[in-house]
């Protein structure tokens, strides 16, 4: 492989990895607080992509992106309030089953409302017009996705580590009862967690649709599943772990095919191989905490 091609693949790795990372953060944050996997998360990603598709028909692209992100946030909060909140005291398996139900509901609702036909996604022309950098021809999108992701992740880390609700979030993840005793209203913090996670998933959905410009009701299934694996690989419960797991998974997928194109038919299997290998050597993931109960 030429050096130029290698560099190009590094960028591709970061782009794909960033998208996995953004989705993975939502899984890991919800798990960190409620200790269950929100299987509907991948579908929020899908709804984000649809929302910008329709919003873009009415308003300029940047505004449409904001609408899509806000809409997906609200959807995430709504899902929690209606499908998970009534089950807070129930065994964890109930919430898990409820999550699977919400996932089917959102997918089938999308088929009904948006039809099952794939639609061409919005791609602002300047993002997909190749530019020459050194000896390379790259799409601005390839730079933009990791940059936007980095900015979003830094914003999130600021909220989690530098604000009062962030402090409450970190406290809840360890000891709900004590945190309530300190005056934290748990449901507000959980809503914030779903809102933030869903906003990041929608951002990922918007960028995903630019890179693979086709949207359909089941587009969230595989990215969601792989991002979940990325979250486990990074150490579920850890935001930094989710980012690391996402980038690692993106790199493995892109590089394995770059070095050995005959593997391209197995693209979706790498995530599972990575999961198995990492969990054999590091049962709690790369940055996960030891001795915490997992499902």
């Amino acid at each position: 492989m030429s050096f130029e091609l290698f560099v190009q693949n590094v960028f591709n790795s970061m782009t794909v990895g960033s998208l996995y990372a953004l989705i993975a953060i939502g899984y890991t944050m919800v798990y960190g607080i409620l200790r269950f996997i929100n299987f509907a998360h991948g579908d929020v990603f899908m709804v984000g992509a649809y929302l910008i598709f329709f919003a873009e028909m009415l308003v300029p692209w940047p505004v449409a992106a904001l609408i899509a992100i806000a809409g997906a946030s609200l959807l995430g909060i709504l899902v929690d309030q209606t499908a998970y909140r009534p089950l807070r005291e129930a065994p964890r398996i109930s919430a898990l089953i409820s999550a699977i139900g919400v996932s089917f509901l959102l997918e089938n609702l999308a088929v009904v409302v948006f039809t099952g036909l794939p639609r061409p996604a919005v791609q602002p022309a300047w993002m997909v017009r190749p530019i020459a950098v050194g000896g390379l021809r790259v799409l601005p999108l390839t730079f933009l996705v990791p940059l936007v992701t980095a900015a979003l992740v830094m914003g999130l880390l600021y909220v989690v580590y530098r604000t009062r609700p962030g402090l409450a979030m970190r406290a809840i993840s360890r000891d709900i009862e004590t945190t309530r005793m300190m005056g934290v209203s748990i449901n507000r913090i959980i809503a914030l967690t779903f809102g933030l996670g869903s906003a990041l998933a929608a951002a990922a959905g918007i960028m995903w649709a630019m890179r693979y410009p086709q949207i359909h009701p089941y587009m969230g299934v595989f990215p969601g599943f792989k991002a979940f694996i990325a979250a486990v690989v990074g150490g579920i419960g850890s935001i930094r772990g989710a980012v690391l797991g996402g980038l690692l998974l993106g790199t493995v997928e892109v590089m394995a095919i770059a070095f050995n194109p005959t593997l391209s038919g197995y693209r979706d299997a790498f995530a599972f191989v990575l999961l198995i290998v990492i969990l054999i050597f590091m049962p709690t993931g790369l940055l996960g905490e030891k001795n915490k109960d997992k499902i």
Partner: protein
Amino acid sequence: MLELIDLHVRYGGIHAVQGISLRVRPGEIVTLIGANGAGKSSTVRAVAGLVRGGLGGRILHTPPGGETVSLAGLPPEKIVARGLALCPEGRRILPHLTVAENLELGAYSRSDRKAVAGDKELVYALFPLLKERHWQPGGTLSGGEQQMLAVGRALMSRPDLLMLDEPSLGLAPILVREIFQIIRRINQEEGRTILLIEQNAHAALSIAHQAYILEVGNIVLSGPGRELLHDPKVKEAYLGG
């Protein structure tokens, strides 16, 4: 300040608190003494809103200059916002948060951000060790230091009523003395009312204005702390003869 009338706490088939009544007047230190399993923690946990089912009787709170309100059914976060803070049994420090963050969490119910910073300094003045270690994760503190952090954290909500559940548990004798001195200072200098649960009956009775003795869910004796200190029954059962 606080009045419990015929309080019951049941956990499934276990009747942990069997109809106790007690009163905490503003400015007092009131202590609740009893053997393991007598129902002391259940009582303060009920006041703090941490007992969800199985609660009976009345829990009445009268804030300074305010109206009497029943606390039963209020969630814990509303109760701390009303000025009743619990420093729970076993400290319950958040081990991954720094000392400073644990204190800030204690002030979560408040909206006066500037005053909170000042109160943090007051807690540091009370426990200088915490200031030295303000950046350290709470879990890396020693048991005694964690206890100080737990007391400091409860103070950060500026409670009118501070409930302390066995603050001297597991501390070396010198630290026990220090903790009791500090409890007294919190009461006298800061004017906070205190409900103190203790195994160390001697120390607790010595500083308490009022004391209640709990045996298997019932109050069997009550009176001014100093009186109970000299009561023959108390001497035999709780003060080692």
